[in-house]
């Protein structure tokens, strides 16, 4: 059931099935292993109690080098969080070469040496760099391949989601950001509204009326109708002002300016 939930969440956010490690699908409990490290001694791939982040990299490859830089930045920015970090490199790459790239990137996490590409084969790593994230139960919850754009944001979001710091919706917004389209009628209408507002304040009623009409033409809102009502009322055109306030109330029955405008017009009429 839990595995299904993970798969459903993954499917909602990304085409996970196409991205997962060939031999370890999302939702799988990953076996923990201890591997020798670049600086000597051994280090475990995963934590049995915390979220773990492991990165298969090949120092020397352009994308891997970019990943080392990004992940070093993440490591620094997420310092103090309960995350178990490690990078994994093949024992084919000379240690000195790995050490130089790791140093250049500013990476401080342990770098595990994968003898004979055993772990690489076990996971079925097809592309690298690739980042795997497991939860407290060592269950693979996310997979993040290299991305040329928004990579750092993707990595941090995946980790924060595993830490339950952000919701599914927040993760989705980061993985699929809202389009940043230019302008649009509502935006143009708002600018005419603001201009009309200023011209109304400076008693330039004629131009204020012209600009609020342009605003209404582009995108009618209750606020724009109300402002038109105020301008018309200031010009002494009570009948049209009331009509404008009524148009505002048709869009928003609680529009305070329109309610006040109608009240004022009635009082003035008496």
């Amino acid at each position: 059931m839990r595995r299904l939930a993970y798969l459903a969440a993954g499917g909602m956010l990304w085409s996970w099935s196409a991205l997962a490690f060939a031999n370890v699908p999302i939702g799988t409990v990953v076996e923990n292993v201890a591997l020798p490290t670049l600086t000597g001694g051994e280090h475990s791939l995963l934590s049995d109690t915390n979220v773990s982040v492991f990165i298969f990299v090949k120092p020397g490859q352009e994308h891997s080098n970019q990943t080392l830089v990004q992940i070093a930045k993440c490591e620094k920015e997420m310092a103090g969080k309960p995350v178990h970090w490690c990078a994994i490199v093949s024992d084919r790459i000379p240690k000195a070469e790995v050490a130089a790239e790791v140093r250049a990137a500013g990476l401080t996490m342990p770098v595990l040496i994968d003898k004979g590409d055993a772990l690489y084969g076990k996971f079925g790593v097809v592309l690298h760099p690739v980042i795997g994230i497991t939860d407290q139960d060592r269950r693979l919850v996310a997979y993040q391949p290299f991305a040329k754009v928004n990579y750092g944001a993707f990595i941090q979001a995946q980790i924060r989601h595993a830490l339950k710091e952000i919701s599914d919706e927040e993760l989705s917004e980061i993985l699929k950001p809202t389009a940043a389209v230019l302008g649009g009628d509502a935006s143009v209408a708002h600018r005419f509204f603001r201009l009309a507002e200023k011209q109304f304040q400076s008693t330039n009623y004629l131009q204020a009326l012209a600009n609020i009409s342009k605003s209404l033409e582009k995108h009618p809102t209750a606020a724009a109708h109300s402002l038109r009502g105020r301008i018309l009322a200031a010009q002494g055109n009570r009948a049209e002002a009331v009509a404008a306030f009524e148009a505002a109330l048709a869009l928003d029955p609680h529009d305070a300016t329109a309610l006040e405008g109608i009240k004022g017009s009635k009082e003035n009429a008496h």
Partner: protein
Amino acid sequence: MTKGNIVSQPTTNRDARLKKCLNRIAIYSAAGVILLANGFQATAANAKKEEIAPVPKMRKNDLTPIPDIQKPVSAHSPYQDGDCSLCHQRKDRNDPGMINKQVNELCLDCHDDFAKVMARKSSHVPAKINCVTCHNPHNSKQPKLLVEESEALCLSCHASISNLVANATVKHDALTTGAKCVNCHNPHAANVEHLLTRLPFDLCVGCHGQDGVKDHAGKALTNMKALLAENHEQHGPVAGKDCSACHTPHGGNNFRLLTKAYPAEFYSPYEPKLYDLCFDCHEESMVKDAKTTTLTKFRNGDQNLHYLHVNKDERGRTCRACHEVHASKQKHQVRDAVPYGHTGYMLKVNFTQTPTGGSCDRTCHVTRSYTNSVAALVPPKTDAEPPKAP
């Protein structure tokens, strides 16, 4: 202002108009300089306050209003209404005085929806600190009050892109058609890095998701939306919606705007440099080691079949011989058929995957099977050449 236009006016009128025009230019030039100075003061102040990265050097513009005779195509409403005092000290067109506030503060007074826009994750430094780097607050011969034609305006600061565009042997028409740079970038701010309005894939399929699109050289391009709708086994970067992992959008020197080298033909001698693109993500050892039990599942026992197919001094099969680069119906993007020769003949691949290996039916060679199990090896057979294209 053309000579013909001036000559066509009566002399007295012409002199009067010219004098008036020069007066206005002098006044507005002064105003423009003040406007710019204010902008840069604001820049320095903000940089200090927020400890932001050093501000890049930005272009300086002549913000003088363009005389009607030069036929401006866009005008700022307050300027058009003659309402100078909305921004300046006085309403007098001939003597408006200084502006009332710092440049962007003044702009955001009316364009207050921009506060929300500029709060997006990635913002353009000039938009953040000085709107008049790109816009003339009075009028312009360009749409949107731009101080220069949009592409030229962007490239006047982005020199490296300018060089890339000028020197690329493979061009991308997106840069020179439609809204040009703004086809993909939002010049103010965006939720995606590099001010991209959407993630790369979503931007690309905006054009490459329809039939009839041709490249700069006139060659028909695949409708990617249709291809991906029918083929669910996608290459990692495609599934990750990251076209820019393999393609360079501003232009380049490899076919199909690929970022690095990739063999264009069915056959190629094995030379790692020709596969630079693939080896940015894939393990080179996968085609370099004759024997493996970890690097690939395309092996017969420990005999590496990728090595067998690709790693040859002369007629090595390139990736495209068996794999679709974007997506296919079979796992590992194994293709159903591959174009062979130059007649459009499609050579069937006939690959079938099994739980422990797979097989290829007769096409390139006689039917062959393989198993990943070292204990249950399928006897190796000799290689054979593919049939000749009809």
